[in-house]
């Protein structure tokens, strides 16, 4: 780990985070003992297949988990402040001001019966105590920042295209210049061309405003393009954490290897793709052991199927 981004004072430190879904008869551990740090201005990637707990981690960071999901262990520190110890009012002020989030689907994360302008102005009236008119003026500026005509403030979400909606959401996320932006699969629902536009936009904003990013995706090639360091998640655990290029060049964990091979690289020569299950089958992982220097773990049971059949 020799990236210059991991500065002395990290923006975010997550230590031993464990999230359980507490049921009446049994509990399910969705995230187990996850630790990572994000430095100032760093883009940290979190990769893994659907259902591995990525989004749960994202929601846990802002304490957005709903019952029955409960954080049962671990600490989350933002610039040294203990997020889990915050009182409700403190937490409310912390959200969006310090850590903002771009949700997976812009369509469903925008309120369908409120205008885009109202939903943007909300941020300023709440956090900066601005009057409506002033808040709307700031909202217009924000729209311009993501290259949308300010007249669209009066539009309802369903009147915008998918790419525009996502840009609106991104504009909202950077409204208060947060120190950390969580992006939970921000481009999954979009087509490839729009996806590229959005990614370029994010890159530009980040250069301009200098926030750190926690970037969550299952798309490994996209991840490697944009993140400095990344972690691979499987079954609620981080199986490998490393600088992206290093991890891409020498994946140490078989699952990382499989995940990389399942996506085409955005640059570089063409090659055959393999489906996750074709290359290896991961058995149940009843016991995980830390090995090596603590940034990767390997399942003790790893069944490699020869044929790939069931």
């Amino acid at each position, binding site marked *: 780990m020799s990236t210059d981004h991991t500065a002395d004072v990290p923006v975010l430190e997550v230590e031993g985070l464990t999230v359980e879904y507490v049921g009446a008869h049994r509990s399910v551990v969705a995230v187990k003992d996850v630790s990572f740090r994000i430095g100032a201005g760093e883009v940290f990637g979190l990769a893994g297949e659907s259902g591995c707990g990525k989004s749960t981690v994202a*929601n846990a960071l*802002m304490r*957005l988990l*709903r019952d029955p999901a409960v954080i049962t262990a671990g600490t989350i520190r933002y610039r040294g402040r203990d997020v889990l110890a915050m009182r409700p009012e403190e937490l*409310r*002020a*912390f*959200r*969006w*001001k310090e850590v*903002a*989030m771009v*949700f*997976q*689907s812009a369509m*469903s*994360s*925008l*309120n*369908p*019966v*409120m*205008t885009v302008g109202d939903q943007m102005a*909300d*941020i300023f009236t*709440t*956090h900066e105590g601005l009057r409506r008119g002033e808040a709307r003026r700031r909202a217009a500026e924000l729209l311009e920042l993501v290259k949308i005509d300010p007249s669209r403030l009066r539009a*309802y979400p*369903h*009147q915008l295209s998918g790419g525009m909606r996502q840009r609106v959401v991104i504009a*909202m996320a950077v409204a208060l210049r947060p120190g950390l932006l969580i992006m939970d699969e921000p481009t999954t629902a979009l087509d490839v061309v729009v996806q590229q536009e959005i990614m370029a936009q994010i890159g530009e904003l980040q250069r301009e405003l200098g926030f750190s990013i926690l970037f969550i995706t299952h798309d490994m090639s996209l991840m490697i393009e944009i993140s400095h360091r990344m972690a691979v998640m499987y079954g609620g655990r981080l199986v490998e954490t490393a600088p992206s290029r290093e991890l891409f060049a020498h994946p140490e964990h078989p699952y990382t290897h499989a995940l990389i091979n399942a996506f085409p690289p955005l640059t570089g020569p063409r090659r055959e793709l393999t489906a996750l299950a074709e290359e290896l089958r991961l058995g149940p992982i009843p016991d995980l052991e830390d090995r090596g220097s603590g940034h990767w773990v390997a399942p003790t049971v790893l069944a490699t199927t020869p044929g790939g059949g069931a």
Partner: protein
Amino acid sequence: MRFILRRLGFYLLAFWVSITLNFLLPRVMPGDPVSRMFARSQGQMTPEQVDQLRKLFGLDHRPLWQQYTSYVHDMLTGHMGISISRFPSPVSEVIASQIGWTLLLGGTALVIAVVVGNLLGILAAWRRGGVLDSVLPPLLVFIGSFPYFWLAMGALYLFGVVLGWFPTGHAFSVGLTPAWTSEFVSDVATHLVLPAATIVLVSIGGWMLGMRNTMIATTSEDYIVMAEAKGLRPHRIMFRYAARNAMLPAVTSLGMSLGFIVGGAMLTEVVFAYPGVGYQLLAAVQGLDYPLMQGIFLTITAAVLLTNFLVDIVYVRLDPRVRVA
């Protein structure tokens, strides 16, 4: 706009169905209740009045289509025949003199039940597990299980007869003449309390539970999580984001439940001898007053359809998604 026009067309169709139903009932039903009515009351009617009623009920010998066109015309122009039980007033006059009381009673009860019920539902959903959420719903379901009129009887007996807190019937005290004086208005209000309260009590549970459940469904929407992530204040999330959206199904069911409210109001009127159309309907049933029964049916239907149309217009204001469609 297209949405509004489509709804309007639908209501006109529904009204046409009701008129046709009214037309067909006396003509296709087995037995001849209408002749019984005539036999009972012919003595006091003029030949013209008899003739008009015969036409209304198909006891003339014109071809059916001709009867039908003249019937529809009569209904649309408000010629609903002569009331038997309130002879010799025309049906339209009888209804006109009483519909106001029904609107007052039903309207008051509806507004209170909807506003209070929905507010309780919002609060219950927001404070899931609170006292409001665990005690009130089962209680209201139980109260909602009683027939309107029985609860009305109980209220009348307890608060009217035994305790004597409220008048036991009618819309205002005997001896008062209707006028916009404070004395008359407050007299009307005291007469309104018991009947309105029973309707509110029976119907409020449905509103509360309906709102509570849509609120619960709404609070798991992504845009609520987003609003929470934005650090908005809880009451703003509750009213501006969650309740605003959860209100939409409530508005839709408002239209649908109007019929039930009207039915409840009519039965309650009967118990309290409240001089609205419901009470008149009972008199019509007892007096074999078929023209009045049918007239009340048509008037109530028209009122319900009209209110539904107004609700649709409100809905369009509330949900921008329909506006463009």
